[in-house]
């Protein structure tokens, strides 16, 4: 006991000894630091003071030219040009208000300019120069240059501005750039590319501009400059040149884009056309569009409100973010599911009397043709879009087998197109319904899923991709907007190779049945016979109509008596030439009524142009990108937002 206590005291003694020694070391080392500070800050102060004052070597970033965006035929969709800006460095100004008042006597400074200046001023640092006026013309620039001596801290700079020569045409594809905000900064920091944005003010915000930002931006260069006491560059000591951003070459054909957008007329909607063999997207329409040039310099409140509050929702990227019930365009895929599961193989046929009922129910699932179609086999069911046939097929397949199969065609998942913000639509399953609504799945819901009604939701992109997969015998090519990335200086191009996404193993005989059914759609007797009239090539197609509002039993749908925004959506999918598909597409005309008559003509014009080089009669003038404001349609129209049936929250849609 005593030994232990002694031991303890002994240990404590030694511990305190060591602690004391540590304290001594701390004091010695801190004194060493204090001496070092004294040496630097007192003894050598003058020396370092001079060095600091003469610290004239400054690294100035040189912003690289942003890459161009070019369509498949070499038409420029996005380029840059220099403009003069009048800039103020706040730290060098004594009285800002006086300076601005004096400046406005020389060049016009609007209240909008002032608003923007104040906004930028808050966002930037004291020593950074902030533009008060952009787009100075030559005479304004000259006027200021003469008076420059009166305005220390104000200077003319030339900055690169982005311009979209085709304006509204294809604006959802090209996208736009905008000023870097906090969210962008965080993203750049995360991707470890922040240092490359020293000096950059803009970053891609949507479309190709956003997705290909890392390629378009280029590598920032640096200039080592000698600066005077005011921070003005006097002499360049050395420089590392910036590497301009890569040019991005799209698979889009802007002439085709124009034809398609014009063909929509005053309708809202979307169209995606794909080369089924490569996955290259040929046209990507979202109507109405907007002018991306508005966003470059920071969009003003009025324009923003007009775009954002418009019932037409021009800012929504409909092909990847608009969701619609597929309607009867779903039937070819349901047909494939049936055939591949050994159901409805020829010579199976039904006697259609115009409706379908479940075993112990009186509810009639009606065909679109009240009198029925008579004897119908699989091929004919597609051609005439026989609802009764597909009600029974869906029920016999069951919802799980049905959705499991069509999922291979890309429904219920993202297509993987090179654009941000894609949503995955919805393929309903009993588990999904239980999760979402806490309700069991009903047989009737399986029945209507067979004709693309009910919970199923697709994006135009998905529908086009599914059509392309069908046209390509089950081989899914990854859809892409960009085909080449070109180095700006050397002109070296890197091709984006076509990429097989998935291969669905399908029985060729089954494919043949569905494809024959779709070919007959555009022939006399089919639901879109007019679309195929006088065509120099065979078109395989399927029409669809998606209900926007429910119709009660025994009630008739009368388009003319219904509010325009409650009319059915018209859907149309097609590929051509039917025997050797070169183009596959999906058209959705919001509140357009019948798929064949509203969507079909748009598809036909696009296919005529692509396959025959034929221009629509009203639009035969050669494309003159700069002189003519293209696609300036739909902006002044009344219309509705993309209707999301059932108000399903977006997270449910595999966003």
């Amino acid at each position: 006991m005593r030994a232990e206590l002694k031991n303890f005291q002994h240990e404590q003694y030694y511990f305190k000894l060591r602690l004391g020694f540590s304290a001594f070391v701390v004091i010695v080392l801190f004194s060493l630091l204090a001496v070092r500070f004294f040496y630097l800050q007192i003894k050598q102060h003058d020396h370092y003071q001079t060095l600091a004052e003469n610290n004239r070597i400054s690294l100035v970033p040189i912003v690289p030219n942003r890459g161009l965006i070019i369509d498949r035929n070499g038409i420029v969709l996005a380029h840059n040009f220099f403009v003069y800006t009048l800039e103020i460095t706040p730290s060098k100004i004594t009285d800002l208000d006086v300076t601005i008042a004096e400046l406005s006597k020389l060049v016009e400074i609007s209240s909008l300019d002032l608003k923007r200046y104040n906004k930028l001023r808050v966002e930037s640092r004291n020593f950074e120069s902030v533009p008060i006026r952009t787009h100075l013309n030559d005479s304004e620039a000259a006027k200021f240059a003469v008076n420059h001596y009166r305005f220390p801290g104000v200077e003319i700079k030339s900055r690169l501005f982005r311009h979209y020569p085709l304006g509204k045409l294809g604006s959802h594809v090209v996208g736009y750039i905008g000023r870097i905000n906090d969210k962008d900064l965080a993203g750049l920091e995360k991707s470890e590319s922040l240092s490359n944005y020293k000096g950059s003010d803009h970053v891609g915000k949507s479309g190709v501009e956003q997705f290909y930002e890392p390629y378009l931006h280029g590598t920032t260069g640096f200039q080592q400059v000698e600066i005077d006491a005011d921070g003005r560059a006097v002499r360049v000591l050395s420089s590392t040149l910036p590497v301009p951003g890569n040019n991005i070459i799209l698979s889009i054909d802007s002439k085709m884009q124009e034809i398609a957008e014009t063909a929509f007329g005053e309708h809202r909607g979307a169209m995606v056309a794909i080369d089924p063999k490569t996955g290259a997207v040929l046209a990507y329409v979202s109507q109405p569009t907007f002018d991306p040039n508005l966003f470059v310099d920071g969009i003003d409140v009025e324009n923003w409100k007009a775009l954002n509050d418009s019932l037409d929702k021009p800012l929504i990227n409909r092909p990847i973010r608009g969701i619609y019930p597929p309607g009867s365009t779903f039937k070819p895929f349901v047909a494939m599911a049936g055939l591949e599961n050994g159901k409805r193989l020829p010579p199976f046929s039904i006697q259609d009397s115009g409706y379908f009922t479940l075993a112990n129910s009186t509810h009639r699932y009606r065909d679109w043709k009240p009198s029925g179609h008579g004897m119908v086999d699989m091929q004919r069911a597609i051609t005439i879009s026989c609802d009764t046939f597909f009600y029974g097929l869906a029920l016999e397949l069951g919802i799980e087998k049905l959705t499991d199969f069509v999922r291979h065609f890309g429904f219920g998942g993202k297509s993987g197109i090179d654009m941000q913000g894609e949503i995955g639509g919805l393929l309903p399953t009993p588990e999904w319904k239980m999760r979402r609504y806490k309700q069991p799945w009903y047989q009737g819901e399986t029945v209507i899923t067979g004709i693309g009604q009910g919970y199923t939701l697709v994006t135009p992109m998905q529908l086009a991709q599914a059509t392309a997969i069908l046209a390509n015998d089950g081989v899914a090519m990854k859809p892409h907007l960009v085909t080449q990335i070109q180095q700006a200086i050397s002109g070296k191009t890197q091709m984006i190779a076509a990429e097989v996404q998935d291969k669905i193993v399908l029985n060729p005989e089954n494919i043949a049945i569905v494809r024959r059914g779709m070919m007959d759609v555009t022939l006399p007797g089919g639901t879109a016979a007019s679309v195929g009239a006088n065509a120099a090539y065979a078109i395989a197609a399927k029409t669809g109509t998606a209900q926007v509002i429910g119709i009660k039993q025994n009630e008739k749908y009368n388009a003319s008596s219904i509010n325009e925004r409650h009319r059915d959506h018209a859907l149309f999918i097609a590929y051509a030439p039917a025997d050797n598909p070169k183009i596959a597409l999906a058209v959705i005309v919001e509140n357009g009524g019948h798929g064949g008559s509203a969507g079909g003509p748009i598809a036909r014009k696009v296919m005529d142009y692509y396959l025959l080089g034929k221009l629509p009669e009203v639009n035969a003038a050669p494309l003159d990108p700069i002189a003519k404001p293209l696609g300036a349609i739909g902006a002044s129209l009344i219309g509705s937002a993309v209707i999301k049936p059932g108000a399903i929250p977006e997270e449910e849609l595999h966003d």
Partner: protein
Amino acid sequence: MINKLFQHLAKHIDSFLMTCLLFTLLIGLFVLYSASGQNYSRLFGQVINITIALSFMWVAANIAPNQLERVALPLYVLGVLLLICVALFGSMSHGARRWLSLGFTQIQPSEIMRIAMPMMLAWYFSKREGKPAMADFAVGGLLLVVPVALIMKQPDLGTAILISASGFYILFLAGLSWKFLVGGVIAFAASTPILWSMLHDYQRRRIEILLDPTQDPLGAGYHTIQAIIALGSGGIAGKGWLKGTQTQLDFLPERSTDFIFAVFGEEFGLLGNLLLLLLFSLIIMRGLVIASQAPSTFSRLLAGSITLTFFTYGFVNMGMVSGILPVVGVPLPLISYGGTSMVMLCIGFGILMSIQTHKKLVAT
């Protein structure tokens, strides 16, 4: 009522230490505001970091030392396992493998080690009360070397040095013999060439440039040269808050983090620097007093190590900014911008407070 609540909340807070910490943190916020170019979101971010860190400190202060003793071994084992995981499947960033992705978040296991290492060694030596034998030091050394080697390998020299220091202080305070210490210094000197060969190129370059920063004035030496110019031009009273030309004109790199001391020294001068040294000294002396009064071997060793590690932080950072130590990537404690290091530091201070305030309860 409110008074009572406050008393209850502050029961395990050491008021002297707390005052010094708060004062230093406040100075840090002012410096950060200037260093970040008057960026409010940075400042706000740091306020959040501090709030979180102080909450952790409060929690740590309320955990009795004997409870800490119990988790020492599991925490250490967990830390080592995670470090092994980092070496095997860690994610690369900036040419170093430090992070471990857990799916929903990323963790940096070397940070856990900063607390786990001193706790483990303190626990180990507390189990060998009396005079630890040479073999115990050998085991202690091994416990120290394994994780440090893993961290060196990432590579993260700054953290490796700090963790080595925290472990070494325990060995030293536990009574590692002077003969061995002196022998160690000689052995270290002899093994310098081998260590040199183990360093990464960029680390070697840093040491070379330390010896002669003018070798590479626009490259690796740029940091040091600009930092020294900033300090030196600050003079006695400094250029004034927000008025440091080196800082505001972008000459100083990494102003908010590792080189924030240069901002401070430029804008507040020698007087500011001495004030900061004084504050640091007060914190360290308080920590040493707490260690000397601690009732158990575990708490005593742990308190000593935490305090001296804090000292090491400050000394290495200020030494590096003023050009007497190599640039090793150690932030200035309580001042530099950063969440994790702030939290770890404050957990350390919380443990110090716990040791100080639980002692009385045990003694009665």
